[in-house]
């Protein structure tokens, strides 16, 4: 029996002013069986979240569709458990002789279904863990004893049982991102739903937080009779957990299949801009197997990708080139007394692209904020271009030398015109008038936004906003660019485009420091890495050393990407097998053979 049934659904978001928005969903047909673990993937803006909201009935019912334009906004139907959630009677509501349509159905009421959103901060509605989980239960009209029992049970289910005793006193700020997301899951589980929808619940989380949430969902699937809809980008998660996966593109469902079948359609997925397995890409692009045989895991790949030649070399910068940044045993203490850095070390040489890795709370961002003059260090040694960052004068001028691209572009857009946004920083540091325009134009050219110079940045897409933030930093002509989490919550194409941009900077001799959780990105673009853990530097060296050493990875709590894991796996049997780091090196090694 299908739990969710979507038929020929068309939907567009109501516009506040002016013309109609384009259709966000263009004829979606989807059936989700009871007890199924259903995955949804696809590029950003394809309509994944919109489909989830339509299952909940948040649209059309919470969306303020203009009463006399219903037919222009919604057609088709959504049913959950054979009850109409969203529907329309197109012949009703006749005004001036034309039927305008009337919305039918009712939103899904808890406890039937729950939906966990992407940003853990926004869905924490109260100031205490206990009341957060209890809120939905109070709305269900349960009595205190019953609420106590269910909150406790739900916290245990998501692995936060140890917080129950003191739940009332725990403030959201006391919890990590992964914990907050698990609390959001618990607050729906406590209502004992039949259907749980998770909309990219791990995109803001580090690898540890990600595994916390995914492990939770996996156990729930095994232990409870729950139907789960998971929107996700990561092919490994989708492949391991889902019974069926749907690919959503441009407001349509292009493919629904079981994981095996789904990921064997390599060419189709690649063309649609969905994430694919790294080993699939290597095997298919090197032409060593047909599309139907592309490997998806290391086990599958190790029998196919064997014939290689050559030895890869690290393309390191001259070891005597200038140290642009030199940090030695650096300590930092927040105003409330929390010590965030306890002896961090970092050396960045001119022309280098280095990765700064470590989990949330390991001090990466704190270190970056010291290097850009936002925080003042406590003790230790910190030099930028040979100047001592402990001096106030030096710190004040750091923004001219070190550009910092923040993680969320929404936090760093200060004007309402793309051109002004890039010129803003130049005005702050008093660049001469006649130099401003050429510098802005040049920076916009480099990030490919020159055509949009007069647009309002707030209406750009997320990928464009991020490129704008990079342009704003480039125009300052800094010696070093620090990029904080450039790829979180972005689809495969956006990640490729931002990384191509960073690679271009590197090739032009720029010095780049990338803060990231994305290990594939590190293997592809960073020759060297610095790993922080609990405020200390635990490793400085090449990414090849890091990813080929299980001990180091364990110590740093990181995971190696598929490409290098595969070469390590093959080297267990064949010691002479080259240590290939990433897709590019693999393709080259395979090419030489053929």
């Amino acid at each position: 029996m299908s739990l969710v049934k979507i038929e020929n659904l068309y939907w567009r978001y109501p516009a506040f002013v002016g013309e109609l928005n384009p259709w966000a969903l263009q004829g979606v047909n989807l059936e989700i069986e009871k007890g199924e673990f259903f995955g949804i993937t696809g590029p950003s803006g394809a309509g994944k979240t919109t489909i989830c909201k339509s299952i909940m009935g948040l649209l059309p019912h919470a969306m303020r569709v203009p009463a006399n334009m219903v037919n222009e906004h919604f057609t088709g139907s959504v049913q959950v458990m054979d009850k109409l959630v969203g529907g329309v009677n197109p012949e009703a509501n006749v005004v001036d002789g034309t039927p305008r349509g009337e919305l039918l159905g009712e939103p899904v009421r808890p406890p039937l279904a729950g939906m966990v959103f992407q940003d853990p901060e926004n869905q924490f509605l109260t100031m205490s863990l206990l009341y957060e989980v209890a809120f939905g239960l109070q709305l269900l009209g349960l009595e205190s004893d019953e609420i106590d029992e269910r909150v406790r049970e739900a916290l245990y289910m998501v692995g936060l049982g140890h917080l129950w005793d003191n739940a009332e006193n725990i403030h959201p700020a006391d919890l990590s991102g992964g914990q907050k997301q698990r609390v959001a899951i618990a607050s729906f589980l406590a209502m004992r739903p039949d259907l749980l929808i998770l909309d990219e619940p791990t995109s803001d989380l580090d690898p540890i937080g990600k595994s916390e949430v995914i492990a939770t969902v996996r156990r729930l699937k095994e232990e409870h009779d729950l139907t789960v809809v998971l929107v996700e980008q990561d092919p490994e998660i989708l492949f391991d957990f889902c019974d069926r996966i749907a690919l959503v593109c441009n407001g349509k469902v292009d493919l629904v299949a079981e994981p095996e079948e789904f990921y064997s359609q390599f060419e189709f997925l690649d063309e649609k801009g969905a994430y694919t397995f790294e080993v699939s890409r290597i095997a298919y692009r090197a032409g060593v197997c047909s599309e139907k045989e592309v490997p998806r895991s290391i086990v599958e790949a190790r029998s196919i990708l064997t014939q290689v030649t050559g030895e890869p070399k690290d393309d390191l910068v001259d070891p005597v080139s200038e140290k642009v940044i030199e940090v030695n045993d650096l300590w930092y203490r927040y105003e409330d007394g929390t010590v965030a850095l306890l002896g961090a070390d970092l050396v960045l040489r001119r022309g280098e692209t280095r990765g700064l890795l470590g989990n949330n709370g390991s001090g990466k961002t704190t270190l970056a904020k010291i290097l850009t003059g936002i925080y003042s260090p406590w003790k230790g040694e910190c030099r930028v271009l040979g100047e001592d960052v402990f001096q106030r004068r030096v710190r004040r001028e750091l923004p001219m030398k070190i550009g910092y691209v923040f993680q969320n572009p929404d936090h760093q857009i200060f004007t309402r015109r793309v051109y002004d946004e890039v010129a803003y920083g130049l005005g702050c540091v008093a660049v001469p008038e006649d130099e401003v325009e050429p510098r802005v134009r040049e920076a916009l050219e480099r990030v490919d936004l020159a055509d949009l110079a007069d647009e309002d940045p707030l209406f750009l897409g997320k990928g464009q906003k991020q490129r704008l933030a990079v342009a704003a930093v480039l125009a300052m002509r800094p010696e070093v660019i620090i990029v904080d989490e450039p790829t979180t919550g972005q689809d495969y194409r956006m990640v490729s485009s931002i990384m191509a941009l960073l690679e271009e900077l590197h090739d032009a001799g720029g010095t780049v420091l990338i803060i990231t959780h994305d290990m594939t990105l590190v293997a592809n673009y960073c020759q060297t890495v610095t790993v922080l853990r609990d405020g200390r530097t635990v490793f400085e060296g090449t990414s090849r050393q890091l990813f080929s050493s299980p001990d180091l990875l364990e110590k740093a709590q990181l995971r190696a990407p598929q490409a290098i894991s595969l070469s390590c796996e093959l080297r267990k049997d064949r010691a002479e097998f080259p240590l290939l780091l990433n897709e590019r090196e693999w393709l080259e090694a395979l090419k030489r053979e053929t």
Partner: protein
Amino acid sequence: MSEATLTDSTAPGRGQKWVRTFLFSMRIDSPLAGLHAITKFVLVLGVSLVLMGMISTARPDPVGCILLVALAFLLLWLSGVIRWLFRSYLVVIFPMLLSLFLSWIVFNPNPGTRILFSRQTYSGVLNVGVSVAMVLFVVIIVGYYLFTKQLYWGIIGAVIVALIISQTPLNLSWTFVSFPFHQPLTLIISDQTVYVAATKVLGYGAMVLMTFLLVLTTRDIEVVGALRKVPGMPYVICLFSSLMLRSLNIAMIDFSTVRQAQVARGVNVQKKNILAKIRDMAYLTVPLIANMMRRSTEISDALSARGYEMGSKPTVYREVKPFHIVDYLLIVGTVVLVVGVLAAGLNITDLVLGLVSGLRA
């Protein structure tokens, strides 16, 4: 995935000793943590009223004030917030109380029973004339400005020189006209002015500390709970105030991030005057409002997903705290004290003095 990754060592929970409040955090075992929010509010309001009576000029009650200051310190200490309060706010509190003390003494001439210091500051006659000190004052400032194009140290130096000269016989002066204006002013420091000033400082000090105590030991959730207890209060107001507090909390985090992003763009590279700094602040509104709008739609989706709709009436859970006996006792006690001091003229200093002289006799 092993169980080990599911129970994190950094997590709060068992063994947690602190809980976040409006301002900073307090110890979980603070005696104030168990009190009802309404009790705390009545307590602080009552104590402030009592203090208003205690610092009256006619019948100051320094011993009462000292007792209340001591009580405030004790409670701050038991709540574990005293070190934080001193580190963050002493810079403000101490000069504030000191200036209160000085201005009271200067502007309230009261001979009392013993005059400690007295000096006429104004004779009641205005003289229009010129003196050596005045000329030097002007010459030094103008000269310093001409040479250095700066004023600050010129003014300081001129004041010092003029003060020194005016105290010596070198300060020749010529008066052109003189006429009487206002009455003569005298600075009098007597036992009475010091006594009253000290009481006032102690009293205001106790009020400040008590107010800090309230915001340092009250949690936002308590306020929401107290609101739900008010008869006839629609739930939507309780929910709205709760969401308001939570959004403020998020907005503060956004603000600091946005401000840092602005610093990273170089706003502080140049030295700026106050107007330019205000303009910089205005730029912050673009990202702040953009974020707020994004968050508000997401929060309303999250509310709907939990099943909230207009008119929902959730059941009462633990946020509505019961009144304990100790709450009633404290409120009654506070009312008795207020009535005692304000209506019946209770004065602890007099009581203590009476007791001491009674014991002697």
